[in-house]
């Protein structure tokens, strides 16, 4: 669903996030446009999760600005959503979890069940609609989390290491859903440790190091010929796949 | 979910039922623990309720506390056994008129071993002097009850200033008659008790009646309507109906009919205005 004024591009200007004396994000400026799938990589402690949360609005920057192109409509569905490494699901059925998100988005009651079922179908979980969400497997739970946000039809989807806790089979399933959402028009912003995943899912890569955006390049070029020394060291250290 | 709703509804109904009780015909009588624990009320009140349809709710406390409850206007009638305290109550304007109702007597209870050698005596004052001389363990109620006040008066009459004269042998427990008897039984101590509570008491241990029959052990009960002028919430008609019944020949006979093990506990004497 396209609204008249797109949320994107998202502009960050000199964003700093400090906890006491420690600067976890140390002056990041960037612009995120629609279309491309953006993947963020970097060593532990680089600030990737924090950057994602700042963009999504879960954290407020200590200084600097974060601006969307158009403000979110109050009372309307959330146009940007986030999926976390461990999905947080309520003690209800899978269907009820999706309906809950639709309720929060002020979707009219009559439409909720239909849209929820549709979302479950898209991720291949429609047979689990009545099952308790908590008894699903790790991969199924993460797909349910994706169904939950897909039902909202967001313009932007942030994902924080969504497959880090999953086995290869479940990872593959989740990557398939992410790809489908992108094909349906959602901007993907993904943080991952898995360079294979970065290469499979990424169009462009942002390399974060010690709270700074050190390099930004198309995925192929970054992975084969990184321009910065920190990136080269990082790629050397990480066992790709 | 249905269970939750049904429970909720029954809760509400219960609360409403509680509130509705306020509309019934009943009076609140502040009385003493000894009267309650003797079982007299269980015998007396159903007879009154059958005759008049008035429910009597007895709050059983020590005499001092019962009079205090009435001073706050939380009772309609007081029924206690401490004439001096009752007359002070009237003098303060909290009561309308005092009617003597009945009497029983106090007995001096003590252990079979009787360290103070008072068993079988007829003179309570002599017995108390011997207990103090022997420093034998003695349990006092210490709770401003009618029994407690009677005990203090007896020490005074025996010429003993118990405040100064007491030592570790004098155990001031601050409890009702039953608990005090429990304590005396477990300590093998002497204790002054009203006969009615003693007869109904089951945990006697090694205790028995050692001194009785002295006129000074006489225990008079009086009933007073709380003054509706001072406390407008008092149910004066219903309260007066209770008092009238207590002093009537029917009420007096019912009191005399109350027995434990064939023994009469209380002696009606409403006909003695000086009592």
């Amino acid at each position, binding site marked *: 669903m396209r609204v008249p004024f797109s949320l994107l591009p998202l502009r960050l200007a000199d964003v700093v996030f400090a906890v006491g004396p420690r600067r976890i994000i140390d002056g990041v400026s960037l612009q995120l446009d629609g279309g491309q799938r953006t993947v963020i990589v970097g060593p532990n402690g680089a600030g990737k999760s924090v950057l994602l949360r700042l963009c999504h609005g879960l954290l407020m920057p200590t200084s600097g600005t974060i601006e969307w192109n158009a403000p979110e409509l109050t009372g309307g569905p959330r146009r940007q959503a986030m999926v976390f490494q461990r999905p*947080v699901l309520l003690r209800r059925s899978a269907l009820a979890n999706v309906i809950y998100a639709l309720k929060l988005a002020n979707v009219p009651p009559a439409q909720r069940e239909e849209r929820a079922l549709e979302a479950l179908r898209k991720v291949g979980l429609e047979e689990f609609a009545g099952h308790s969400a908590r008894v699903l497997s790790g991969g199924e739970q993460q797909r349910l989390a994706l169904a939950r946000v897909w039902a909202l039809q967001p313009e932007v989807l942030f994902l924080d290491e969504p497959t880090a806790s999953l086995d290869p089979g479940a990872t593959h399933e989740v990557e398939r859903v992410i790809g489908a959402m992108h094909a349906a028009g959602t901007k993907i912003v993904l943080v991952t440790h898995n360079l294979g995943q970065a290469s499979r899912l990424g169009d462009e890569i942002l390399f974060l190091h010690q709270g700074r955006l050190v390099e930004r390049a198309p995925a192929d070029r970054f992975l084969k010929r990184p321009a910065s020394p920190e990136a080269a060291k990082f790629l050397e250290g990480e066992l790709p796949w | 979910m249905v269970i939750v709703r049904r429970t909720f509804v029954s809760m509400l109904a219960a609360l409403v039922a509680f509130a509705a009780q306020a509309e019934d015909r009943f009076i609140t009588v502040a009385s003493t623990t000894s009267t309650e624990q003797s079982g007299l009320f269980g015998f007396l009140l159903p007879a009154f309720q059958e005759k008049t349809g008035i429910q009597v709710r007895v709050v059983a406390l020590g005499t001092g506390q019962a009079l205090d409850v009435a001073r706050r206007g939380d009772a309609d009638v007081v029924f206690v056994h401490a004439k001096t305290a009752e007359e002070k109550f009237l003098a303060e304007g909290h009561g309308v008129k005092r009617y003597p109702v009945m009497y029983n007597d106090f007995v001096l209870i003590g252990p079979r071993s009787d360290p103070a050698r008072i068993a079988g005596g007829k003179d309570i004052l002599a017995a108390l002097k011997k207990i103090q001389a022997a420093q034998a363990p003695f349990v006092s109620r210490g709770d401003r009850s009618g029994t407690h006040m009677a005990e203090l008066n007896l020490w005074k009459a025996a010429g003993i200033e118990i405040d100064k004269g007491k030592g570790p042998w004098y155990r001031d427990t601050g409890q009702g008659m039953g608990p005090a008897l429990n304590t005396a039984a477990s300590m093998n101590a002497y204790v002054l008790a009203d006969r009615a509570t003693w007869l109904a008491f089951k945990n006697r241990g090694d205790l028995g009646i050692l001194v009785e029959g002295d006129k000074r052990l006489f225990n008079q009960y009086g009933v007073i309507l709380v003054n509706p002028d001072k406390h407008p919430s008092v149910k004066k008609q219903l309260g007066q109906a209770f008092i009238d019944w207590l002093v009537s020949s029917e009420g007096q006979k019912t009191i005399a009919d109350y027995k434990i093990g064939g023994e009469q506990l209380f002696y009606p004497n409403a006909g003695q205005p000086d009592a």
Partner: protein
Amino acid sequence: MNDTLAEAAAQAVALVVAGDPNLVGIVALSLQISLTSVALSCLLGLPVGAAIAVNDFPGKRLAVVVLNALMGLPSVVVGLFVYLMLSRAGPLGALGVLFTPTAMVIAQTILIAPLMAALSRQVVADAWLEYQDQLRSLGETKLGAAATLLWDLRFTLVTLVMAGFGRAASEVGAVMIVGGNIDGVTRVMTTTIALETSKGDLPLALGLGFILLFIVLALNAGAYLVRETAQRRFG
């Protein structure tokens, strides 16, 4: 001691088998008062606890400390306070509820509501750490989050509620003072046990104690079973 215990057990069984109407009345009243108090305490305490857990406000730490301290309110103190409030000579005397079961419910609710609030605050706060990011991401308000968490934690809360019920059913100090232990009106299990003890009828008191224990045990077992089955269904 063994004789007393044996006699007490025998008395307990005899009373129950005979279906003594007096006993039935006392048990029914005890349950009515305890269950009503617990229900009211949950209605008051659970939302307060959850709200404190998910919100940040100046003085929050002090509020938490005070709330936790209120769990230890001595029951006689509450009883005395409520008595002074409800006495004819007191501010709420006109209500005329002193020496009635309503007064007992009021006193017990004052005792248990802080317990429900303090415990639910802890439980919700722990869960909030886990749920916070996701719920905020979906656009949930603080108030909505508190409600959602209370419902999601319903199985844990069952244990909390049983703790509150245990406190109510075992309480004697407050209900004795504000109820007056009036025969047939405000006499409950605990005050009856106290009365029979003071009358020296220890086997009967102990027997009643066994019956009370058994009732509380049965209710706890029931709650546990309900919790288990529901949890298996809903994870």
